């Protein structure tokens, strides 16, 4: 049995770990709140944007835009969106697994794959494994629309120049604090917009005057649509990361508590054993004296 002193030291160490994990939990909680707020603030913009885009798409009869061009997918690019920091449970691991599986499948089909990493964790993992063409790391702690724009700038011109044929975005969809779902979305060619189920009711639709013409306007809005999609993914990643870290740190804290209580029990037992041994010694000593 470990000595009393050893156990005491161990309890102290676990206690310190617990303090750290609890602090991290609280930090993650406050970051999560601000990430959630950001998501909420973004909602009116995204909602309004989709309304306008849909009603515009319905009016333009034949949509022809380089971003909508469907080509035989030979070259594929993938954006993998992970977090910059670890200690957030399976958040990144699950996402990397999904990405790897996706890449393997496409690889089997004989496609040429290039990866764009957002977030340090994905970069670290894929750095030597696959063809990485671009990366953005250490950006997620504080970001705004310009980050989404810079990511979009990375991918839009190359697609228009037909340097590749399909673009996928893999990110963690935020379901709730403890659930993040790795999701694969095709960005390019853009899935058709203005599909019947997203339709605005005809009588609700306003007949606008478009300036410049509706077609030109649509061409301007499509790149912005990409920004909106990327930005939303970034927001969900940031909220999901902090949510996952919150849950992970909460777990760690309660594990520490469990460990402390079992160690304390051990410690008490050891102390009791020491006292009993001492008592036995005394009793034995007295008896020996009495006999003598």
């Amino acid at each position, binding site marked *: 049995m470990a000595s009393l002193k050893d156990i005491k030291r161990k309890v102290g160490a676990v206690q310190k770990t617990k303090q750290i994990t609890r602090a991290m939990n609280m930090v993650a909680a406050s970051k999560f709140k601000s990430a959630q707020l950001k998501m909420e603030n973004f909602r009116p913009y995204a909602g309004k944007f989709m309304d306008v885009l849909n009603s515009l798409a319905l009016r333009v009869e034949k949509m022809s835009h380089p971003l909508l061009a469907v080509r035989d997918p030979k070259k594929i690019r993938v954006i993998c969106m992970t977090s910059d920091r670890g200690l957030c449970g399976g958040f990144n691991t699950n996402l990397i697994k999904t990405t790897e599986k996706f890449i393997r499948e496409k690889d089997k089909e004989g496609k040429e794959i290039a990866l764009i990493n957002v977030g340090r964790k994905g970069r670290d993992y894929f750095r030597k494994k696959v063809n990485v063409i671009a990366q953005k790391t250490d950006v997620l702690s504080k970001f*705004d629309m310009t980050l989404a724009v810079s990511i979009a700038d990375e991918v839009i011109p190359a697609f228009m120049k037909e340097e590749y044929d399909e673009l996928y975005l893999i990110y963690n969809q935020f379901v709730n604090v403890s659930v993040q779902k790795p999701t694969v979305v095709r960005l390019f060619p853009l899935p058709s917009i203005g599909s019947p189920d997203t339709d605005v009711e005809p009588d609700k639709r306003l007949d*606008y*005057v478009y300036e410049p013409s509706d077609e030109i306007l649509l061409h301007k809005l499509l790149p912005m649509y990409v920004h909106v999609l990327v930005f939303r993914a970034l927001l969900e990643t940031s909220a999901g990361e902090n949510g996952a870290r919150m849950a992970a740190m909460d777990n760690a804290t309660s594990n520490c508590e469990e460990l402390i209580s079992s160690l304390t029990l051990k410690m008490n037992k050891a102390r009791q054993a020491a006292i009993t041994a001492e008592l036995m010694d005394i009793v034995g000593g007295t008896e020996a004296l009495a006999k003598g």
Partner: protein
Amino acid sequence: MAEEITLEVVTPEKMVFSGKVDEVTLPGTEGEFGVLRGHEPFLTSVDIGELYFLTGGKKYYYAVNTGYAEVTGSKVTVLIETAERADAIDKDRAIKAKETATASLAQLNKEHEDYEKMRLALVRAINRISVADKLTQG
């Protein structure tokens, strides 16, 4: 007093302004335009420039980035990537941004892929400086 029109300025980060104004002027891509209540419904794209509106006898200026505006008879919704109120603009930073953009533009070839990016950065910086100046002029 003229009838008021509801104005909403929305960026991805937040609702920048929401309220009733007498008149609003926007930097459309086809030229600056003003909107009063009862305007014909229309939709247009917005360029880098200044947005200003009149309310309570005062003029408020904002420096805006690209986006678009939706106008109905009683409401104007402006969706833009950034919007800064004149008094919130960091003019020193804008001047610095202008200098860096000018310097790197001088080095870059027109064909270079960063040229357009830098040019836009310069336009934005100039716009922010001019809007910030509007404030000091009253």
